[in-house]
C-alpha cells in the first residue's frame, strides 16, 4: 500500500500528510514533485493543503495544469483513489475531478479552528471505518472554502449520497453557526460520482496523533487502506 503526496510550489501540508500515512497509519508514502510525470506506482494520490502557486488567479487554478496533474487525472479516470484536502479539494474541483467550486468564505475571514463534521455516507472507500452519523472533530484552516455549485449539481450530490461530510455542531446538528464558511448545505466533503475521489476542506491529516489532540482524521486513511488492501 503506497500513498503518493503531490508537492506543488506552495503546498504546506504535504509533510503532515506524509506523517499521517507513515507514522500514524504505518503505510508507505512518497512525495511526488509537481513537475514529474510519474506516479511511481502509488495506489492513492493525496493532493495536500497549502497555497499552491500563491492562490494566484483562483485557489487551485494554476496547480491543475502542473505536469503531475495529467497523471493524477488519468489515475482518477482509471478508478484510482484520490483525496484532495483543503487546497487539494480546490485543485480537484478546478481539474474537473469533482463538481462545484470553493469560493471566498462568506464571513471573508480566514478561519483556523476546530470544527465538527458529521459522516453523511459511511459507504465510501474513504469513510468505511466510520459509521453514518459519527461526529468528528477536525481542524479547518482556509480562506476559500465555501462550497458552491448550481442547484442541479447540489440536488445530484444530495440525491446520490455524494456528500461525505457536513459541518455540524458538537451534537451533530446542522446549524448555521457550525458552518465556518457559508458552504451550501453545510457541505464539508464530497465524493465523485464514481466514488474514487474525495474532496474535503478540513484537515484529517492534522488529527491523527494523540499527542496533538483528537485522532478523528485517522479513519479516512484507515478506510483507504482497508479498501485498497481488500
Amino acid at each position, binding site marked *: 500500500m503506497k500513498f503518493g503526496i503531490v508537492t506543488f510550489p506552495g503546498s504546506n501540508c504535504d509533510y503532515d500528510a506524509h506523517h499521517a500515512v507513515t507514522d500514524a497509519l504505518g503505510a508507505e508514502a512518497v512525495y511526488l514533485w509537481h513537475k514529474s510525470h510519474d506516479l511511481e506506482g502509488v495506489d492513492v494520490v493525496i493532493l495536500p493543503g497549502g497555497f499552491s502557486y500563491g492562490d494566484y488567479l483562483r485557489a487551485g487554478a494554476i496547480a491543475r495544469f502542473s505536469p503531475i496533474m495529467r497523471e493524477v487525472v488519468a489515475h482518477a479516470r482509471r478508478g484510482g483513489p484520490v483525496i484532495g484536502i483543503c487546497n487539494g479539494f480546490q485543485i480537484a474541483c478546478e481539474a474537473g475531478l469533482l463538481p462545484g467550486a470553493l*469560493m471566498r468564505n462568506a464571513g*471573508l475571514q480566514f478561519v483556523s479552528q476546530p470544527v465538527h463534521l458529521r459522516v453523511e455516507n459511511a459507504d465510501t472507500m474513504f469513510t468505511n471505518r466510520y459509521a453514518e452519523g459519527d461526529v468528528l472533530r477536525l481542524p479547518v484552516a482556509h480562506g476559500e472554502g465555501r462550497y458552491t455549485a448550481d442547484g442541479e449539481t447540489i440536488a445530484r450530490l444530495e440525491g446520490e449520497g455524494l456528500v461525505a461530510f457536513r459541518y455540524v455542531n458538537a451534537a451533530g446538528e446542522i446549524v448555521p453557526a457550525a458552518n465556518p464558511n*457559508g458552504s451550501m448545505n453545510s457541505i464539508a466533503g464530497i465524493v465523485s460520482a464514481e466514488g474514487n475521489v474525495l474532496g474535503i476542506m478540513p484537515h484529517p491529516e492534522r488529527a491523527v496523533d494523540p499527542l496533538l489532540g483528537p485522532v478523528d482524521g485517522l479513519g479516512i486513511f484507515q478506510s483507504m487502506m482497508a479498501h485498497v488492501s481488500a
Partner: protein
Amino acid sequence: MSRFRVSVNISPRQGILDPQGKAVAEALHSLDFAEVRDVRVGRFVVLEVDAGDDAAAAQRVREMCDKLLANPVVEDYRIASVEVS
C-alpha cells in the same frame, strides 16, 4: 500579425453570494454613500496578444477564459476592449 491589448472583466456570476462585494457595499454605506444598492467585486485582466486581427485576438482570449482565466462554475467574463497595442 499585429499586437492587441485585450481587457477582460471577470465577475462572480449573478445569484452567487459575493461576500467581498457585500463588505464593500457596507463600507460605502458607512461612508454615507447611501445610494449604493449592490457591489460586485471581480478581476480585471489585461493581455497583450499577437493575432491576425482584433476578432481573432478576442476569440483566443475567450478560449483562455474558458480554460483558465475564469471558472465557468461560478464566474462570468466579458471582453471589455480590444485595442491595437
